[in-house]
């Protein structure tokens, strides 16, 4: 691959923020027509580097040189870099939900005829762009009516509308299920064959290994190395070693489960969609959890795992229809979240920022938020007890923050997740439901979160883990249920769990008991 011409070279880029050097002497060489992956732990400087490249941090706010298409460029803003054909697609998609696909593709770039928007031309061009990214939808469909995978494709189509030469994707598959991820990766391969260069930032090392030509590894704001995937025979372990600076012997801590009797059971659970009542999101689902057991829920995005968890957790999703919950041999009725908490349930949401935390709060207030009664008497809060509780969890979970007064919005994803875990551990739950507990978290922090989950199980609690990453479920769980279109389609013991079996049951309604 190294015979390809160089498209972009970033030379000893240094970016200083008040009090912290985010990038120190970073070098990046991207050749035309390759897929170049940038990996590194959270905080390694990946996004900062891309912001320098795309002009978010304008020329003059960093040191170093950017040589693009053979000439030094000095982008003053994002618009300048886009005019040069560099388009960045952020992890949080920048689409407007209530506008159509066409409107979104041409937002700020509308084709005009005599001053008015030429919708006919726009629709025609949109169809053409959509075909290039393999998106088959009516261009008048509203963004909110298509799945997140297709939204991602709209973003890419939007990039093509701007005549992109260098496409930068920040965690493009983080929110996608396996099928959509696969489609996106195929698409990137197609771009490569047509000579479009892509830079991809990702935490998913298997994807990088599968698709990238070159990998640049960043650590603590420095370039560690650039690997040529084919020539260097790179595999995941090799990448991990570069990222963390040494070998990670295992991605999961060693653990011998201490499994007790069944203590929590959901029977024949039926729930309808909150808005369209004809849609049934939980179809007669039943499952059990034993003490000390980590139970996984595998399924594609939209299979209804989150809906199941939230409807069990105090009916916080959907319209309850029928079904019973049995805990410690007794039927319990959980009509509100407060009921669920009182009965020892905890639900850690998949969306930390939107549903898990109040980003205005500090660590201390977040930690105690779900059970204020524990630190108060007659409704009056005890500040000292609050501090002590939060501080003990901070030490225990090794949350990286100077003090518990630190605002949670300043923490990294992994540390925010620890705060959310602390918040729910503080409620003394018997059953924890963790929805995508390691989404958007780097390798090192994941390992720690796994350790915490195992410790919770060892304390005799039941833990339910919902995850879209099959290796995570297989590595962590003692038993895995598969869910497909709102129904439980299988139950697989740890020793029988492998990606193929799981995937088969996640995509079929046929009930196969392999236990």
């Amino acid at each position, binding site marked *: 691959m190294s015979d390809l011409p160089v498209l972009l070279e970033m030379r000893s880029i240094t970016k200083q923020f008040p009090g912290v050097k985010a990038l120190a002497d970073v070098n990046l060489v991207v050749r035309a027509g390759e897929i170049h992956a940038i990996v590194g732990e959270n905080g390694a400087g990946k996004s900062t580097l891309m912001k320098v490249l795309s002009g978010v941090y304008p020329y003059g706010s960093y040191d170093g040189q950017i040589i693009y298409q053979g000439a030094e460029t000095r982008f003053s803003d994002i618009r300048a870099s886009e005019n040069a054909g560099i388009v960045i697609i952020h992890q949080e998609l920048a689409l407007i939900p209530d506008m159509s696909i066409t409107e979104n593709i041409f937002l700020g770039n509308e084709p005009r005829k005599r001053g008015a928007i030429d919708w006919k031309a726009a629709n025609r061009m949109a169809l053409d762009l959509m075909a290039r990214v393999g998106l088959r939808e009516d261009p008048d469909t509203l963004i909110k009516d298509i799945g997140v995978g297709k939204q991602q494709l709209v973003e890419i189509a939007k990039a093509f509308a701007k005549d992109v030469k260098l496409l930068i994707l920040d965690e493009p598959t983080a929110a996608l299920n396996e099928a959509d991820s696969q489609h996106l990766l195929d698409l990137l391969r197609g771009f490569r064959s047509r000579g479009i260069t892509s830079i991809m930032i990702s935490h998913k090392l298997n994807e990088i290994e599968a698709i990238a030509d070159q990998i640049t590894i960043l650590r603590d704001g420095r370039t560690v190395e650039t690997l040529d995937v084919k020539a260097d025979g790179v595999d995941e372990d090799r990448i991990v070693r570069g990222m963390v600076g040494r070998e990670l012997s295992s991605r999961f801590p060693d653990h011998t489960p201490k499994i007790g009797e069944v203590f929590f059971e959901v029977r024949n659970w039926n729930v309808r969609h909150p808005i369209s009542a004809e849609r049934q999101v939980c179809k007669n689902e039943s499952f059990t959890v034993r003490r000390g057991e980590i139970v996984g829920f595998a399924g594609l995005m939209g299979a209804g795992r989150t809906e199941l968890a939230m409807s069990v957790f105090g009916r916080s999703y959907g319209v309850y229809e029928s079904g019973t919950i049995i805990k410690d041999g007794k039927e319990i009725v959980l009509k509100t979240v407060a009921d669920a908490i009182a009965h020892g349930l905890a639900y850690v949401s998949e969306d930390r920022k939107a549903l898990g935390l109040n980003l205005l*709060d500090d660590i201390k207030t977040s930690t105690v938020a779900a059970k204020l009664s524990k630190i108060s008497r007659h409704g009056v809060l005890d500040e000292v007890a609050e501090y002590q509780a939060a501080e003990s969890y901070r030490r225990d979970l090794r949350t990286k923050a100077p003090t518990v007064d630190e605002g949670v919005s300043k923490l990294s994803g992994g540390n925010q997740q620890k705060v959310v875990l602390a918040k729910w551990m503080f409620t003394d739950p018997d059953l924890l439901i963790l929805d995508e507990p390691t989404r958007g978290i780097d390798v090192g922090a994941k390992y*720690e979160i796994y350790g915490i989950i195992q410790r919770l199980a060892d304390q005799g609690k039941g833990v339910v883990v919902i995850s879209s990453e099959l290796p995570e479920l297989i590595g962590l769980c003692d038993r895995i249920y598969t869910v497909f279109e709102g129904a439980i389609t299988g139950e697989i013991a740890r020793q029988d769990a492998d990606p193929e079996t799981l995937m088969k049951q996640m995509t079929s309604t046929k009930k196969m008991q392999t236990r």
Partner: protein
Amino acid sequence: MSRIKDLQKNLFGGTTSNARQFGMIFTLVAIVVLFQILTDGLTLRSDNLIALFNQNSYILILAIGMLMVIVAGHIDLSVGSIAAFTGILVAKSMAEWSLPWPVAILFGLVIGAIIGAWQGFWVAYVGVPAFIVTLAGMLLFRGGNQFIGNANTISVPEGFRVIGSGFLPEVGPNTGYNNLTLLLGLAACVAVVWREFQARKTRREMDAEPAPMWISVLRMAVMVGVIVFASLRFASGRVGTSFPVSGIILVALVLAYSFYTRNTAGGRHIYAVGGNSRAAELSGVKLKRVNFFVMMNMAVLASLAGMIFVARSAASGPQDGNGWELDAIAAVFIGGAAVAGGIGTISGSIVGGLVMAVLNNGLQLLGVGTDRVQIIKGLVLLLAVALDVYNKKQGRFSVIGSLTRSFRRDTPAPPTAPPDADRETARTAVPS
């Protein structure tokens, strides 16, 4: 750390380390000093101070309720109309049904509670935005006031007027001062000192270095100085005047509600709902109940403010309470509350309200017309909030860092990244 920085950090940072509030207190002091000079000492004269309190206590009472409404992420435009509506009903109840005045006050509070329940129902249980519900309420209760009162004024009896224009009575030996006011001041001084030592103790229990002793002493000295000065001024007014009853009501409410919002689970829930209502709901906070409560509480306080105003002006009229909602909202925002909810303090709102009050009063003393006073007040509101927005953007003091409602510890601060560097610049752990 230099002493100046120490001072800045600690002087007003004891319990509400709120950089915005810190700035506002200085603004308030600066405005007071400015007008004191411009008016040749009129501003801080006893009679003016007493008038200032009398004229603004009801707005400040509204600001308390409004702060809670805004923190929960709502707004209330109906407070002026509710005040007027309650005022006319209470006046009528005494004039025509001859209710004794203490019963009439209770009656007024009940009316406020019923109106609040009405508005709270629509906001919390039906889900109509508070802006719309209270815009409707603004029309509804303004019309109701004029319908009931036939657009006439109804005067209120002498006893009732105490809550609006009454003063602490003269008791005890003749000292040349109002004794009760002095006692009140003394109690306040003791409370300030006690609280400072409590705060130091709490800090130690939270493994944090308390502020240097000299700062504690300085802070106490400043507070005690202000209290002593104010009590002497209030106590030495014209015979028959002293600290106003409405001021006592205000102080009691400020203390009670500050405690409620800062130190109770119920108060914490209001901030949680305003900060992220979905997350609060999933943490077991009863969203509807909180929303209902803040709207209802606001209406009760609006009724109280309305009654105090009627008592002060000795009669209830059709134009009572016009534009109060805007004064109260302005006070809350000048006092550092966030438009999106989740952030703000009672004390901040009171300081914000006082800034507006002193400005108003000072300009009037200088003979500036109402037209120009309004222009100046509008600009002050805009500038105060714009400055805050600007500061946030510069990352000088972040929303979170500066507005947390509790202690800060003096640990060596780690390098912090600007907010937009977000998750990329925060370091995470590597398993060992």
